[in-house]
């Protein structure tokens, strides 16, 4: 990267370390932290949206919609979520390719041949002619969808509980004022439920943060991938030979996650006190007493 790093064999000590830590592969390693944060920033709102839909569906008066909502919210109970992370991307990938095969391929050739799942070249996703970054991006997109579906189900659980926790009397009052069910949900239920949902959602965010290293299992070049790649011992054939340093890389990742969870905790504490203001809960009552 820097001109002084042109010949690392001549360097020593701190200068060597600086050059080592700014090599091209290390820059990719630093960028992969961005991948993790990108995944978090996209997944969290999408999962919240899925969860919202699932929770509303589970309360719906239309039976098939309610069944769907109930199945969606309860599917993650009892089954380790890593199974979903392994299952959803493959299932989605095959689903997409199967749909494209129906459109683009010769229907006389079966897709499933023995143990193989084969679609014609035109239906491959991404196309085998597309550059490597498209493959990377497709992998990340599948991972984001898998994370959103799984965490959406968890969020639906939390939001359903929060909706049930809104005092019944408030909803009945709204009905007595002549509001329609839709108005009751929009004006009373949804604004009121957040204070009950926040502890659960905060917990969920922490869990989402701590689930991000699973990107590695999904084959995305994330921080775990680069830590293994860069940390493994390098012989003198490499520009920067060093023994097995993987433990230092993993310790760095560990510290990154500790900082993430620690910072999130601070932020959630502030939001929690903001949302308890004026609520008929123990926390709200304590704030009222402190103020007077």
């Amino acid at each position, binding site marked *: 990267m820097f001109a002084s790093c042109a010949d690392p064999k001549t360097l020593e000590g701190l200068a060597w370390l600086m050059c080592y830590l700014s090599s091209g592969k290390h820059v990719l390693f630093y960028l992969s932290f961005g991948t993790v944060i990108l995944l978090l920033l996209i997944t969290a709102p999408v999962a919240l949206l899925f969860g919202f839909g699932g929770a509303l569906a589970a309360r719906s008066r239309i039976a098939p919609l309610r069944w769907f909502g109930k199945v969606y919210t309860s599917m993650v109970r009892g089954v*380790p979520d890593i*199974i979903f992370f*392994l299952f959803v991307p493959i299932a989605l990938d095959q689903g997409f390719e199967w749909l494209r095969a129906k459109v683009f391929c010769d229907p006389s050739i079966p897709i499933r041949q023995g143990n193989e799942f084969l679609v014609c070249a035109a239906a491959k996703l991404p196309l085998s002619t597309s550059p490597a970054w498209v493959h990377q991006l497709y992998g990340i997109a599948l991972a984001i969808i898998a994370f959103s579906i799984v965490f959406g189900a968890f969020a639906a*659980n939390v939001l359903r509980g929060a909706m049930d926790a809104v005092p019944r009397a408030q909803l009945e009052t709204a009905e007595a004022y002549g509001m329609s069910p839709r108005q009751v949900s929009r004006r009373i239920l949804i604004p009121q439920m957040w204070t009950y949902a926040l502890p659960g959602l905060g917990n969920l965010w922490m869990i989402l943060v701590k689930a991000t290293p699973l990107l590695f299992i999904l084959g995305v070049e994330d921080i775990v991938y680069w830590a293994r790649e860069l940390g493994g011992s390098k012989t003198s054939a490499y520009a920067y030979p060093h023994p097995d340093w993987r433990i230092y890389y993993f310790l760095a990742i*560990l510290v990154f996650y500790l900082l993430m969870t*620690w910072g999130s905790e601070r932020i959630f504490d502030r939001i929690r006190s903001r949302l308890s203001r004026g609520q008929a809960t123990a926390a709200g009552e304590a704030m009222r007493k402190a103020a007077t």
Partner: protein
Amino acid sequence: MSQCLQTVQDYALRAIGIGEKLLPRSDFTLCQQVTLIGSGLIWNLYFGFLALFFGFFLANALAVARFSRNPWLRKPAEWFIFVFRGSPLFIQFFVAYEALVQLPRAGIDVLGITVATSWMTKAWAGALLVLMLNTAAYSAEIFYGALRNVPKGELEAADAYGMTGWRRYRRIVWPTAMRLAWPAYTNEAIFLVHATTLVFFSGFPAFRQQGDALYYASYFADKTFNPFVAYPIVAGYFILLTLCLIGLFGVVNRRLNRHLPGAAKRLRYRPNLIR
């Protein structure tokens, strides 16, 4: 049918190295998948139960240390809990594996006796250690919350009876704390058993393809390019396992609450997912 019996004989204990050496390679039958994935469940049970057992004692000690007023006890417990709860289990596995590999190959000399270290890098020991420390940290936080919520009246009653120290803790504080913590601890136990599926996807290698249920499920899914058979099988096994755990912990819950008629509510499983 008899073919399936043969498969069960060959593969039911494959995960612990008994039976057929080679895994099936082609023409996978449903029977093979159910048997082999079920055989992998042995490892999930092994990790789950031993980690919970040892973790329970460690968690109690940690909770008491965290509750103590002495900073020399409290601070280390707080840091331990923060590190293990604040970082992903997946990364903890990697760090532990890399750290254990650094131990000298030849063994450590303790007072003239050479203690072998190579077994620590094997999954059965190393991953068990990580899972134990991890569940101890999460459970300690639960137990600490319960210790804080022991009713004041019970402590005053203990004082009135002249109970102090260890006797007060054993007879009054601990049983009440357990009673308060049990529903949350049940959930923690379930997450831990679910988390055992991570072991063979992290640093720890599967020795001679002896892996857990998910290891075999992903083996079949990779070989057949069909995720719609193997993963539902392993999911089904875990739903059964979860129901068994809820039943088992429910028995303990009823026992803890036996002096309070009607207090033993049905344990509800609120998933808390991966860590």
